[in-house]
């Protein structure tokens, strides 16, 4: 197990290194410069600024410097926010994104498992039809439409929750719901398909022959076996949602990282782009590793043996 983990963590580091390298050169290919008022600056001033940030050196040297610094945990200074360290910029903004993403995943996945199971148990009835319809809506309605509808009805008309801004828990409700739509829809479709399969299998027939009640069968036998493939989807989905949605964060004025990322790309804030990209990648890789570990817990057939086979 320890050997397996060590191997996986080594590959994780390697992946991050490759992503950092590729992103670095792609970023340099983007048109424009980090200066937003270039026309008004004299060549002298531009030279001073470039020297300050090390942008006057050859690209390969900038690359080597960046990788070495990053390996030591130094991700450079942001261009757009008067020399704030990127690490500080990220850490001060990741909180709201993680909270919203986490809440959205919990709400979406639990609701999805519930609705998906119900759909499978009542296959080809109106219950199944309705939940399929809702899931398809969840997948196909863009999050900004849902966000605005939620703001209008739950926020403005019913005055249940604040429309936007960031304060206590009540401020998180609407953005959480807007974000939860897609994990809910994905989970419920997935669980339905899987559980229909599982409910038709021989061991469920045996469970019925044992005299278990319908609920007992779903709870003790069908659920766990239906969740195995879901784990594969949830990992990457969690990473994607936790790192913030630009659209939802913008609409609800959430001071999160998603919004920040887009801004950084628009103004060529190289260190911030690199920093956020690496953060996303690290989170995704970590989720994939976690997925494999959780797999072993749920499904004894793929449990990792002591010898790391």
């Amino acid at each position, binding site marked *: 197990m320890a050997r397996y983990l060590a191997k996986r963590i080594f590959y994780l580091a390697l992946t991050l290194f490759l992503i950092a390298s590729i992103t670095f050169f792609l970023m340099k290919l983007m048109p424009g410069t980090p200066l937003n008022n270039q026309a008004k600056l004299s060549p002298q001033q531009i030279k001073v600024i470039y020297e300050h940030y090390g942008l006057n050196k050859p690209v390969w040297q900038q690359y080597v410097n960046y990788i070495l610094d990053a390996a030591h945990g130094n991700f450079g200074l942001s261009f757009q926010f008067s020399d704030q360290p990127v690490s500080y910029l990220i850490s001060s903004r990741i909180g709201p994104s993680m909270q919203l993403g986490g809440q959205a995943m919990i709400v979406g996945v639990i609701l999805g498992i519930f609705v998906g199971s119900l759909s499978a148990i009542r296959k080809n009835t109106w219950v199944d039809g309705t939940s399929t319809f809702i899931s398809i809506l969840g997948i196909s309605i863009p999050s900004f439409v849902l966000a605005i509808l939620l703001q209008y009805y739950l926020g403005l008309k019913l005055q249940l929750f604040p429309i936007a801004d960031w304060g206590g828990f009540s401020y998180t409700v609407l953005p959480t719901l807007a974000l939860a739509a897609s994990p809910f829809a994905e989970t419920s479709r997935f669980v339905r398909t899987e559980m229909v399969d599982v409910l038709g*299998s*021989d*061991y469920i*027939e*045996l*469970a*019925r*022959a*044992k*005299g*278990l*009640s*319908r609920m*007992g069968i779903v709870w*003790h*036998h069908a659920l*766990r*076996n239906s969740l*195995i493939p879901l784990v594969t989807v949830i990992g990457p989905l969690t990473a994607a949602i936790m790192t913030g949605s630009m659209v939802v964060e913008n609409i609800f004025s959430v001071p999160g990282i998603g919004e920040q990322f887009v801004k950084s790309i628009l103004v060529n804030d190289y260190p911030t782009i690199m920093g956020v990209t690496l953060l996303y990648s690290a989170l995704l890789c970590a989720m994939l590793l976690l997925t494999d570990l959780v797999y072993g817990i*749920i*499904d*004894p*057939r793929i449990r990792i043996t002591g010898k790391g086979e």
Partner: protein
Amino acid sequence: MENAEENILEVKDLTIDFHTYAGTVKAIRDVSFHLKKGETLAIVGESGSGKTVTTKTVMGLLANNAEVVEGTVKFHGKDILKMSQKQLESIRGKDIAEIFQDPMTSLDPTMKIGKQIAEPLRVHKGYSREKANKQALEMLKLVGITNAEERINDYPHQFSGGMRQRIVIAIALVCYPEILIADEPTTALDVTIQAQILDLMKELQEKISTSIIFITHDLGVVAGMADRVAVMYAGKIVEYGTVDEIFYNPQHPYTWGLLNSMPTLDTAKGKLESIPGTPPDLLDPPAGDPFAARNPYAMKIDEQKEPPFFKVSDTHYAATWLLHPDAPHVEPPVEIKRRQEVYKQRLQAGTINQGHIHSTGNTRFGNDDDDAIGE
């Protein structure tokens, strides 16, 4: 017929339709049979003859698109077909248990086998986890799993096919059911393992005095296992009798065909007998005897009118017009004639079993106490 009092299961005039997109499949037609305490009844027939549907009805586990058109399935006098879901659940696994064909897929892959064996006890007898586990362990030893104390915490994928079928048997028998339905329990196993599983079933049948309904298409297996045999064809029982009567004095041409296609050590090299043709389409079963089209001995009446059961002996009936007093005498296949010769000789010697049950049936393990095995 036999004394009704000792029949624990009585199926009468059972007729079941399946509603499918293609139309109504008449899967079971007028099936009647009974099961006595301690006996083994084999139901034999080819795929699609309705064997499995019959047992699913007894378990109350028919698919949603099945409709019971007619008939009763009485367990100790109470009609299973009229029971609520709750009542059925309380019988399943406790009084009537089932073993399935494929041990590779009939165990939950994510649950420890000990827990799977203990489950019926927890559900039906409300045992505590410890008590149920303890009895599950005893059961595991009883079905011949070595190292049971350690293996009880293993998962199904850690066992071979034969071992898994032993575990399935343990699950089925853990509540000491009165009826065990074995739906082709050895079909998915290789021959040496088959013999072991059959021996185990016979041994356990005596220990816990259960009756067995044994579904199979393998007549070779039937000879060693059953007390009585019912032969099914196209959703109907065409002949039934004691195992000796069916094997040595068969009357229905379909039974002749089945026995004739069974290879023996004397079978000439290179040639296996078979029954030509395929079973009729049950979406639109033919009028008359459904076997008529494949029957070399078919007469005109076979295509017009379904034959009733003709009595051969008190325990032996066959539905073929050949037994009608007016029917011409026909010569059965050589192999069948050979068997009938044996039958005559054994009848004179008095070694033919006519309705007597092999196993004594009351050597129940300990006494009727539920904990007979546990403590």
